């Protein structure tokens, strides 16, 4: 398991290679990369700044990964989330899940992302032509997490 909170960019290919290195039991790796967009709620976004709660963030992400391990048979999980100032097109978050078969990998990857959106203590502040604004939580994210119960 690898969990990292960092300001630097990450490389999906390098992370997947690191998961595979030295092992031949992995049959599937599903990955998700979330990117900063230039439009949100009908307004242009020039940049965003991600704040987090050091200590709790790592703990919350580890708890999500543990919960995924309890639901599916997984061989490895990597979660990387960036903080600081990001511009449109920048990668924000990476989740990669390795398992023997694709079903577990796809499901666990989506599960981790759905719960990360509602449980991990990150907050986005956007720079728009109208000024800075904090992103509001979406009911659709709560609903996405709720369907795993």
């Amino acid at each position, binding site marked *: 398991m690898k969990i990292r909170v960092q300001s630097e960019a990450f490389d999906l290919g390098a992370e997947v290679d690191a998961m595979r290195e030295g092992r031949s039991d992995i049959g599937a790796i599903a990955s998700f990369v979330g990117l900063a967009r230039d439009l949100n709620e009908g307004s242009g976004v020039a940049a965003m700044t991600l*704040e987090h709660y050091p200590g709790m963030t790592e703990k919350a992400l580890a708890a999500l990964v543990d919960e995924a391990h309890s639901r599916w048979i997984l061989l490895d999980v990597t979660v990387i989330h960036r903080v600081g100032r990001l511009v449109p097109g920048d990668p924000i978050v990476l989740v990669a899940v390795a398992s023997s078969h694709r079903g577990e990998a796809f499901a666990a990857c989506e599960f981790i992302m759905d719960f990360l959106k509602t449980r991990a203590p990150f907050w986005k502040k956007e720079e728009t032509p109208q000024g800075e604004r904090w992103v509001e*939580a979406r009911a659709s994210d709560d609903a996405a997490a709720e369907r795993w119960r």
Partner: protein
Amino acid sequence: MKLHVLYFARLRERFGLAEETLEFDGATAADVVAHLQARGGVWAEELDSSRPFRVAVNQDIVALDAALPEHAEVAIFPPVTGG
């Protein structure tokens, strides 16, 4: 009891405060919230029961009736928006 209280994101900005040490007579997360609300102004406004803030005790999100251990780290923040 003595608590270390942290504020994040929009609430940190509205309160003009990132953290403080709090000495108060209370036992639950709801008691801390009530204590802070009693300051009035933005505190009363943002911590009103109609507002969607979250409370974490020792880095776990809790319900408002959660008991507080002595020297707990209590964090109050808006619903999260990462990912």
